[in-house]
Structure formats: structure tokens, C-alpha cells
């Protein structure tokens, strides 16, 4: 873990209601630069809502989100992206009728419009290599396997090396081998200097990847700590893992 102790993302007293449902409830925690923070919680605990609040999809009812020195609470999604926060989605989102190369080129063009073509080509080649998509670069994204589409989604989020990457259930629907490949990729992303916050339902993946874990239940933080602390935390066991299994 390359934790420098510096806070990259600060969530303070954040709340979001949908009608009578309190999806995120007075949430406070920090993400440290260089770490992989796991976000756990049962279905409906507010994990994806939190991602949507950080990336400007939803507006917060109260509270504050600070990215480095910028207050990004309720800022527009594209501005947040340009500040250096990238994300992936629970359901795969890529440009299905376009080639892999076009998908990555579009993501690159959207973030940095002024660059020499040779430099862009080199960067695209690097990303393809990094995400093991080199052989599929001329394939139509919609024709790729599920795992390759998930890798492509990560590749698009990775262009221009974001400072913070939010991964939403990146191993969903993947086989054991594909999960391992994704774990390896997430570690390599961190080694490139990108801080990661990940939502993960696969406990093996969450434990293998996370330096620290925050557990949510009904939108509230019920635990925070190292993976080994979380697995023995009584409140977490009760709310999420289940008392009997413990």
C-alpha cells in the first residue's frame, strides 16, 4: 500500500433521500491517496448512490464532498471527470457499435483534445496493452465477451491516468480466473498512482484488494477499518455477513 496519509477524497455528513427512503445517511469518511478502499454493504445500502453523488449524477441533500482542495458537491459530472475522477458502472457501459480502438480514442479525445497524434497513438497502445485488449482492438465492443467489455470499460476510465477511480462491482458476472485477472489489474492500476474506491460483492475480491474497508448499511457507515478487523466486527457480521455464519 502506497498510503501517503494525504486525503484525496473527503466525504462529510453526506445525505441523500429518495422520497421517504434515506439512501445515504449522514455519511462521513476519507479516502487516502494511493490506497484501495473497499466499500461493502448489503444490496440497497447506498454504495452505488454514493458513487452517483461523488460523480455528480445525483445532487446531495446535505453534506459536502471534497476532492483534494476542490469542493465538488453537486458539481456537474463532466467537470468532476475532468478534475481527475473516473468511474465504471455496475452494468457494463461502453459504446457497443464502435470498435475497441474507437471507444478508447473517444475517451481520450474527450479528456484531452490538444495532443499530437503520435502521442495519442502511443497512449492508446499502452492502455490496450495494460488491459489486455490489444488483440481485440479492431473488434466491435458489443461483440466482446462480458469480461473483455468490463476491461474495456476500465480502459476507458483509465485514459489520462485519473487520480481517483471508482470501480462499481467490476468482477460482476465473471469466472474465478477472470476475477483474478481483474484483481491483478486493479493492483497494477494502483501501482500507476491511481487511488481506487471499489464496490464489491465478491468478498474474496474485496478482501484481496482492499487496504481499508468502509461498510454501509441503510446508507449509514457501520464500520471502517482493515479487512481483518471488518471480518471480526460484530455489527458487520450481524448486518452483512450474518451472525450464524460467524
Amino acid at each position, binding site marked *: 500500500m502506497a498510503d501517503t496519509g494525504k486525503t484525496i477524497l473527503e466525504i462529510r455528513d453526506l445525505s441523500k433521500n429518495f422520497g421517504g427512503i434515506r439512501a445515504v445517511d449522514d455519511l462521513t469518511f476519507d479516502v487516502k491517496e494511493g490506497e484501495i478502499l473497499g466499500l461493502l454493504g448489503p444490496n440497497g445500502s447506498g454504495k452505488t448512490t454514493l458513487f452517483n453523488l461523488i460523480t455528480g449524477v445525483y445532487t446531495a441533500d446535505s453534506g459536502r464532498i471534497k476532492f483534494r482542495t476542490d469542493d465538488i458537491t453537486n458539481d456537474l*459530472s*463532466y467537470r468532476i*471527470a475532468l478534475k481527475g475522477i*473516473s468511474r465504471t458502472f455496475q452494468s457494463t457501459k*461502453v*459504446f457497443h457499435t464502435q470498435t475497441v480502438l474507437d471507444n478508447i480514442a*473517444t*475517451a481520450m*479525445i474527450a479528456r484531452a483534445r490538444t495532443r499530437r497524434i503520435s502521442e495519442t497513438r502511443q497512449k492508446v497502445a499502452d492502455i490496450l496493452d495494460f488491459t489486455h485488449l490489444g488483440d481485440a482492438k479492431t473488434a466491435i465492443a458489443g461483440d466482446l465477451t462480458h469480461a473483455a467489455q468490463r476491461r474495456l470499460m476500465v480502459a476507458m476510465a483509465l485514459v489520462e491516468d485519473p487520480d481517483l477511480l471508482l470501480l462499481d462491482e467490476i468482477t460482476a458476472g465473471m469466472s474465478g480466473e477472470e476475477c483474478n485477472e481483474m484483481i491483478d489489474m486493479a493492483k497494477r492500476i494502483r501501482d500507476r498512482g491511481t487511488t481506487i474506491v471499489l464496490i464489491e460483492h465478491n468478498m474474496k475480491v474485496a478482501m484481496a484488494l482492499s487496504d481499508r474497508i468502509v461498510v454501509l448499511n441503510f446508507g449509514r457507515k457501520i464500520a471502517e477499518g482493515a479487512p481483518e478487523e471488518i471480518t471480526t466486527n460484530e455489527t458487520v457480521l450481524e448486518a452483512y455477513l450474518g451472525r450464524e455464519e460467524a
Partner: protein
Amino acid sequence: MDFISNLLRKKSTYIFLACLIFVVILPLHSSGYVLRVMITMASGIIAAMCLNVVLGYMGYPSLCQNVFYGVGAYTMALATVKLGFSPWTALLLSPIVTFIIGYLAAIPFLKLRSMFFAIATLAFTGVVAAVLINLPNLTGSNAGLRGIPRLVKSDITFFYLEIALMLIVLILTVLMSRSFWGKILIAIREDEDLAPHLGINVTKYKRLTFAVTSAATGVAGAIFFSYQTFISSNYFTIGSSFTALAVAVVGGGGTALGPIFGGLVVVGAPEVFRGMSETLSLWRPAFVGVVLVAVILLSPGGVVGIFQSVVGYFKKRGAR
């Protein structure tokens, strides 16, 4: 220089030049009626080319293209007939007015998507049609406004003017499709929810694209009604708003050349029927409807899609 030498190496460049020469020579040997059909067709094609950017590249099925065609046309008519401007000054005014109206319309409408956007833009066409009918002092209503001065004297020059505008729109569409703007529009079409997370200011690009294409459509309308010297609200009905959509879809959405082929089929072919008999011309809407349904069912890529399939088939055969 690389760009030009690349162009010179392509067969399609020579085919395009041959077509262009044919189009330039064609009116010199055409009757007045045929020339009129060609001017009408060229004007419709320009409107469809502009719609094609909004529909084919950006993915928004607009049904108010003829509103902008009308705004450009009425700017020409009112600026010349009521305000006494020269037609060339009015021609400069028409894209400015249309751009502003297009941008203002984009603010509420582009918050909607797919069929909701289509319905809202259709309703907008209805509202504008009602306004044109109900302001007789300004628009002349059904009786119309007469005496719009001509930009140029001869019909042939009008035809060349339309072709020049068509070429400009075609070149700009091709350049746009290869630039970051084109990539961004395709990203919006493919997944509008993903695009902002890549750093794309979706709202800005959608509104600007809608307004710029509206402005170009306005110029086409201004030129056509200056040629016609007469304008009335009858030209801008809800029904007529489907023509540009039919031209764009039949030609092949999202392809630069699609609307040209679409215009030949949707606007040109029925005029040939009209030339044969007046009764046949009454079947024009039915013809357009049947062609539109047939294309959607059999070849969603339109005429260009069929052409690409045929070329692909022969290339494959040649490779065997």
C-alpha cells in the same frame, strides 16, 4: 498535402467528381419543370443533411426540421418584404435568427430523449404552424407573402447556389464526423449516460449541434423561398415535418452521403410520378410511407447501407 494525395488515390474521389460534373451540366439541358424539381430536391436534401447530424450522429429523432427551414424562409421574406432589406442581407440574417431560435428550442427539448423528444419536437412544429396561420398581418397566413426578391435572376444560378450550399454542408459533415466533435456526438448517441463521465459536456455539444444545424437549414429555406418569391403557412404543416426525417432515414442515418440518396428517392421519385400523371402524384405520401417502412424493416442502414452491402458482396467474391 498528405490529405490531398490520399484523396487522389481513392476511387471514390473520382466518382464524386464525375457526379459533381454531371450535376453541374445537368441543368443546362433541363426543362424549367425539371430544374424546379431539382431545386426543390436540393433544398430538401440540405434540410435532411442537417437533420442527419442531429438524428444519425447524435441520435435525436427531431421532427421540427421544417420549423427551422421556415424560420430561415420567413426571415428572408419578412426582412425583404416588410423591412426592405436586400435579399443578400436577409440571407445573412436568416442563419443568425435560426441559430438563436434553434438554441432556445434546444434548451427544453434536448432534456428529453428518444420518443419523448420526437413528440415534443412534433408538438413544436404544430405550435409554429398555428402561429404562422394565426398571425396574418405578419406572415400572411394561408394567403402568404408575395414579392420576395430573388437572390439571383436565373433558375440555373439558384440551382448552383443550392448545390454550393449542399457541398458546404457535406464537407462540414465529413470534417465534423472525423473530428473530436463527431466522436463526441457518436458518444452521446451510443451512451449519453456514460459520456459525461468521460469528461464530455453533453449539454453544450447537443445544444450547439442542434443550433448550428438549424442555422444551416434556415439558409436552405431562405434560398428556396427567395427562388420561389412566395411563402405561405401551407408549406409548414405537421405532415411536412416528416419529409426531412424520411429523407435522412431512407438515405441512411449517420452517413454523410445518405441524405443525397434519400432525397433522390423520397423527393425526386414522386416528382417523376407527378410528371407522368396528376393522379399518380396524389399517391406521393403513400409512396413515401411505404418506402420508409420498407427501409426500416429491410435495410435499417438505408440506401447507403444497401450500397455498402452490394459493394461488400462483390469485394468478397473478388477476393475468392
